[in-house]
C-alpha cells in the first residue's frame, strides 16, 4: 500500500505492508531503505507501542483526528502533526481537486465567537495582514487580519453577530 507524507514543500512516498492485524510491518522508503517494525496495541484506538531497530516508542493518537486533516500523535512525549495520505485519501484527492475559485478570496472565521467590531467597509483597499475585524471568543478579543491584499467586496456579518467556526465573514476581490 502506498502512503504519501507531506510537509512544508516536501512529499515522501512510502510503500508499507503489514499483516491484517497491523502488527508486523515492512516499510520501504524511496531511497530503497527498508524498515521492519512491530506494533502492539496498548490502549485500543489510542495508544500503540512501536518496536523497530531495537528501539521502543509509544505512539499516542490525539483528539481532533478528523478525516481529511493531518495526523496528530505523540511520539513518546513529542507532539507530531503530519499530512499522511493513505491509498483511499489519494484517490479522493484526485477526484476532488478541481479548479479553485479565482478572482476573489472568501475569508472564513477560524473560530467561533462574537463579532465585536468591523474595521473594514465594502470598497476598502486592504493589505494582507491589516486588521479587518475583531472577534471575541472565550472572553478574549482577537484581531482578525486580512489573509490577502485586495478590495473588500462584501461583508457578510454585522457587529454583535455570533459566528461559528468556518462561517463566511467577508469576500475580498484579489488584486490583479
Amino acid at each position, binding site marked *: 500500500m502506498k*502512503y504519501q*507524507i507531506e*510537509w*512544508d514543500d516536501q512529499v*515522501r512516498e*512510502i510503500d*508499507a505492508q503489514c499483516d491484517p492485524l*497491523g502488527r508486523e*510491518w515492512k*516499510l520501504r522508503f524511496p531511497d530503497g*531503505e527498508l*524498515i521492519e*517494525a512491530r*506494533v502492539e496495541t496498548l490502549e485500543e*484506538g*489510542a495508544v*500503540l507501542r*512501536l518496536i*523497530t531497530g531495537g*528501539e521502543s*516508542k509509544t*505512539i*499516542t*493518537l*490525539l*483528539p*481532533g*483526528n*478528523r*478525516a*481529511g486533516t493531518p*495526523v*496528530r*500523535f*505523540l*511520539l*513518546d*512525549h*513529542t*507532539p*507530531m*502533526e*503530519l499530512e*499522511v495520505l*493513505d491509498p*483511499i485519501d489519494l484517490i479522493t484527492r484526485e477526484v476532488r481537486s478541481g479548479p479553485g475559485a479565482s478572482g476573489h478570496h472568501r475569508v472564513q472565521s*477560524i*473560530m*467561533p*465567537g*462574537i463579532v*465585536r467590531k468591523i474595521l473594514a467597509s465594502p470598497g476598502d483597499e486592504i493589505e494582507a495582514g491589516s486588521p479587518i475585524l475583531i472577534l*471575541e*471568543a*472565550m*472572553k*478574549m*478579543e482577537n484581531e482578525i487580519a486580512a489573509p490577502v491584499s485586495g478590495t473588500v467586496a462584501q461583508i457578510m456579518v454585522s457587529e454583535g453577530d*455570533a459566528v461559528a*467556526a468556518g462561517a463566511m465573514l467577508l469576500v475580498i476581490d484579489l488584486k490583479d
Partner: protein
Amino acid sequence: MSKKSRPRIRRVLVANRGEIAIRIFQGCRERGIETVAVYSEADASAPHRYAADEAVRIGPAPPAESYLRFDKLIEAAQRTEADAIHPGYGFLSENANFARAVEEAGLIFIGPTPDQIESMGDKVRARALMEAASVPVIPGTEDPIEDQETLQKEAKRIGYPLLIKAAGGGGGKGIRLVEQKQDLVSAWERTQSEAQAAFSDGRVYIERFVSPSRHIEAQIVGDGSGSIWFLGERECSLQRNHQKVLEESPSAVISDEVRSRIRAAAISGASSINYRGAGTMEFLYDESTEDFYFLEMNTRLQVEHPVTEMVSGIDLVGMQLDIAAGRKLEHDPEIPLRGWSIEFRICAEDPYRNFIPSTGQIRALRIPHAPFCRIDGSLREGLEITPYYDPMLAKAIVWGENRNQAIERLSALLSRLRIGGIHTTVPLGIELCNQDWFIAGQFNTSTLESWLRQRAEEKLDPDTLQLVSAVIARHALGTARKQSSPAVPGGGAWGKAARIDGIRNPLL
C-alpha cells in the same frame, strides 16, 4: 462534647459554573452544608448544575445576562433559602458592588468585605495601601489614564516595555504589553474597550514591565480581625497571553530566606487591612537580585489553589466557609508544607494552531485514577463546549515528595487522560513535563511564549522513525474509522455522531 452552636451557614449558593462550582459544592458537602447551583441556558446540561442539591436557571448564555446578574443571583439565593453566596473565581468574585448587594440582602458573602474587594480591586489604591504596609511595589502610574496626553507623558516617564492594565481587571484579562511607542495608543484604546466590556470599568493604568521576571504569589487566609495565615508561595511563571498555564508550589527558585521575606510582606500587607477570607498577593520576582514587587492582590480563591492544598493539607474552600461562619485564627502560625505540587490547566484550545478556541462535543472521556493525582473538572461525555465561557475545562493536579517526582507523575497522568472530540492543551502539558528547561526549573514569565514561538518557526524535518510512526498512526486511525463507521442497527448516538462528522474514532 462541646456546645456546638447551630452553624450560621446552612445552605450556600455558588454564583459560578464549571469546575470551581463543583469544587465548592464538595467543600460544602463535607461540612454538612446544602448547595445551590445556578446555570445559564447554555449550561442547562452542564455538570455543575447536577452537582448541587438544587439548581436555579438564571438567564441566557451571555454572562452579562446570567452569571453577572446581581438581581437574579440574589433572588435565586432568597428563593432557595440559601444564607450565603460563594462567588468562586472570575465573574463577580471581585466585584465589591455585588458583595455589598449580597450583604444588603441579608446574606453572607463568602469572601472579603466589600471595602477590601474595592480597595484591592482598584490596583492604584492597592499599591498605595501595600506600600504603606512596607510591601515593595513596582514603578507605575498612581492614577488611571484618561487622555492621550497623560498616556504619552507617563509612558515616557516609565519607559518601554510597559504594561497597560485594567484597573478593574484580574485573572490575566485586560492586560496588554506595549513594546514600542507606536503601539501605545491603539493598545490603550483596545484595553479600555475590553475592560469596559469585561468588568464594566474602562479605567486603565500603566506600569513598568520588568523582564525577565518570575510570577510568584503568596497564599494567605485572614479572619477579618488582623490574624493572617501564610500558606507558602506558588510559582505561576509559565503563562501564555498572560494566562497561567502551569502552576506549582513551592517555587524551584525561592530560598528559605526569600520565602521568609515574602511571608513577612504578605502577612504585613494582609494584616494591615484586616483581610478576611482566602486571598493571594501576587509578586513579580527578579531572580538576579532576589527582589520581589507587589503586583496586585486577588481577593478570591484562585484557580491554582489546589497546589497549596496539596502541600499544606489545608482545605482552602473549607477555610473560606469557616471564616464566613465566624472562625477566628491564630496569627502567623508555622504551617508545615510538605513535598511538591504541580497543576496543569486543561483548556479547550488547539495547541497545534496557536491555541485557537476549540468548541464542540466531548465525545469520549477517560479520567485516570492514580495515587497523589487529582483532577478538578467539569467534564462528561456528550458535553457541548460553547464559546460563551472561559476555555478551561479541568485542572490536573499532582503531588510528589520532590519536584522531579511531581513532574513525572503529571506527565504520566496527562498521558493517560483522554478527552475526545475537541482539541485540548493536554499534549502541551505532556511536552512541557519533558522539556529540559522546565525540569531544571529555568524559566521566567516570557519563556513559554518564546519557546512556543521558536517551535512554531522550526522547519519540519521528520526523521525515518517519525515517518514510520506517522504511517502507523494513520493506519491505526483508518482501522478505527472502519470499525466505527458501519451503520450498526441501534448503534447509538456515538456511532451516529461519528459517522456524521467523519470521525475516525470516537475516542479521538
